[in-house]
């Protein structure tokens, strides 16, 4: 700052200060007025727009947040419209929350913390245990009365198991997943195998015949316990390795015989180039959650997946990669009967929901309870297994099954005594992630099977 001499400058400053002070105050007040005006306009328009709620006070308004999109979202819209039509006292508004890098959970948690959550939320299933244990969900038991007292019996056992924590029901499935082994018939024939494998040993040898790796480049894949979210956990029920706890109730995969067998079996695939395979899967479209995969591209001989693979993925990909046809067999694991892990897309009622009872009515309706006829027509379109077996007896659903014989293995697995849902615990999500990491580590030879199982236990018991 350049001052021409001390006192004179001071005097100039002081007198300027007094005059300019008032001018500046006026200018700043004008500025403040403008700012307030804009802010007020914004607030008024927000309030005005926000009152889009139904005017009728006797109708219960439910908000439902889902993360679905595309054709699935259209099905959900059909379901919501039908529910609103048949339940005049309840109006469900569905809001689609785009799921970007799984940040939609942050939105839900923030709304629960602030005391203003949606009435229903479609939760990603490994989170249910965490949320239930932390008190973020409303228990549904109070509503299992009257016409709903038979609800849990109506559901598939794995559906009940997958939604219950400490004897309280917290989650109701909208659609269950059933997992079986798809196989590419022409790849199988070309590898010199005439019938689909019936035992694990046959599967291993068939897969080995199908694998073609030339000059370090993968040309064709047989079976690979891949890790795009489908690792150890999804094969666990076939090896009786799903819920391994010790007598103190802690996770104990390390000492569980089924788990050891499964992890060693996974390790037998570590001779195949992991990085190459991940790259190929990504190239096939499994980036950012997509599920166009190497099987629909006709490059993979065996693939563990659910009904959506044949109902949606294969037809939508044009099926051109699938020369010849495909078939589905129950996965030949080490347990006697066919089985599947019981998980799916569950609806939950967040804590603080304004109308939990009506929310439960809607959720059970979505699962198909007292709604069998309608869901019998919707579930085939989505390629879903419903929440309870009676929906599958509906004529529309039966017709779908008959028209697609490859669907045969999926339903009987749901009621098999070997099928289980992953236990709901406060560290369920840690275990889910740990199992995926463990699978990847074993396949990349970063961990031995024993170390991998140790790691899962460590994460689950932390």
């Amino acid at each position: 700052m350049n001052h021409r001499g001390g006192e004179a400058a001071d005097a100039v400053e002081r007198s300027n200060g007094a005059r300019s002070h008032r001018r500046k105050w006026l200018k700043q007040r004008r500025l403040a007025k403008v700012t307030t005006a804009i802010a007020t306009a914004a607030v008024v328009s927000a309030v005005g727009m926000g009152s889009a709620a139904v005017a009728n006070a006797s109708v219960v308004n439910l908000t439902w947040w889902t993360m679905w999109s595309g054709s699935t979202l259209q099905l959900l819209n059909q379901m919501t419209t039908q529910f609103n039509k048949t339940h005049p006292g309840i109006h469900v508004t569905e809001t689609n929350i785009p799921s970007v890098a799984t940040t939609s959970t942050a939105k839900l948690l923030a709304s629960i913390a602030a005391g203003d959550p949606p009435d229903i939320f479609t939760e990603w299933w490994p989170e249910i245990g965490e949320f239930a244990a932390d008190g973020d969900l409303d228990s549904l038991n109070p509503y299992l009365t009257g016409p709903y007292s038979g609800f849990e019996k109506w559901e598939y056992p794995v559906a009940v198991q997958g939604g219950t924590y400490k004897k309280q029901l917290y989650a109701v499935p909208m659609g269950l997943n059933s997992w079986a082994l798809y196989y590419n018939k022409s790849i199988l024939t070309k590898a010199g195998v005439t019938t689909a494998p019936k035992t694990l040993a046959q599967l291993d040898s068939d897969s080995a015949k199908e694998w073609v790796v030339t000059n370090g480049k993968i040309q064709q894949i047989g079976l690979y316990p891949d890790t795009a979210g489908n690792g150890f956990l999804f094969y666990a029920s076939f090896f009786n390795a799903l819920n391994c706890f010790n007598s103190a109730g802690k996770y104990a995969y390390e000492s569980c015989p089924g788990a050891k067998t499964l992890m060693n079996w996974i390790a037998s695939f570590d001779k195949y180039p992991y990085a190459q395979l991940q790259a190929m899967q990504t190239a096939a479209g499994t980036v950012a959650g997509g599920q166009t995969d190497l099987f629909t591209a006709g490059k993979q001989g065996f693939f563990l997946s659910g009904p959506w693979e044949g109902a949606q993925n294969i037809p939508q990909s044009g099926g051109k990669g699938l020369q010849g046809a495909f078939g589905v067999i129950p996965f030949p694991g080490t347990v006697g009967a066919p089985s599947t892990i019981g998980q799916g897309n569950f609806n939950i009622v967040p804590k603080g929901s304004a109308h939990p009872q009506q929310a439960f009515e809607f959720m059970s309706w979505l699962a198909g309870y007292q709604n069998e006829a309608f869901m019998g027509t919707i579930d085939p379109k989505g390629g879903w297994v419903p929440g309870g077996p009676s929906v599958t007896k509906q004529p529309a659903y039966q017709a779908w099954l008959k028209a697609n014989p490859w669907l045969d293995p999926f339903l009987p697995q749901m009621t098999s005594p070997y099928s289980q849902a992953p236990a709901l615990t406060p560290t369920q999500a840690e275990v889910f992630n740990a199992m995926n990491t463990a699978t990847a580590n074993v396949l990349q030879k970063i961990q031995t099977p024993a170390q991998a199982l140790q790691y899962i236990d460590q994460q689950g018991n932390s």
Partner: protein
Amino acid sequence: MRANSSRAARKTMRGLSKQAVLIVVSVLLGFPLLWMVLTSLKTNPQSLAVPVVWWPHPFKWSNYPEFLSAVPFYRYFLNTLLYAAVTIVGVCVSSSLVAYGFSRIRWRGRDVLFQVMVSTLLIPFFATLIPLFVIYKDLHWVGWYLPLMIPTFLGSSVFSTFLLRQFFMTIPEALSDAARVDGANEFYIYSRIILPMAKPAIATVILFQFIYCWNDYIGPLIYINNQVWYPLSLGLYQVLGTYTTNWPWVMAAATAATAPIVVLFFFTQRTFIEGIAVQGTGVKG
């Protein structure tokens, strides 16, 4: 005569070599974009084909109307414009005032407070999300754009304030002093002298704020509860889909989301890049 022509020749050579370098860099930076646009015109199986198919045949122009009709595109576009317009006003007004205070007036604690302001950028967004959300909930702002708009009138864009402050500091102090001696108050100097000189910087701030709003998805995702008010960025993620990957759609959506900004940038770049080449009148003695 010969000296002239060889100088001219050297000049042409220099000009050509400059072009060559620019073209090479353009190719390096630009061919992923070319792939994006070409893929947006392919069919789904073509986009996944291995070996890679570069040129789509036939050209599936219908990818664009198809994905545009998957979401209420026009409505989302208007929402984004509103979001951008309001926050641009907020940022220009508050950030320029704050930047002036941090650069053109000398007061005790100024630089410490400035560093405090910049350090607020260092706490991860997700860590403070829940307490901040509770504040906005108590103010009844959650559900619409208010948590994203009102703070911009309170200097929330540290980026803009920082940028303007740096630019203000490149203006010689003598200019302000001369005005002060002539009896001007600080607000006068701010609005009549400094702001006009900082037009390129203000234009830059406006452009960046617009682009920020155009692509911002995390703020709207957390605070807006009514689909009707989603901005274009959320619409893009709605289209991407949770269970299907349609690469041509993804690339068409990305191209459509990028194209308007490209046009905007191309036609406005002179304003903020070239602007005023001569800064201040310099100081003699």
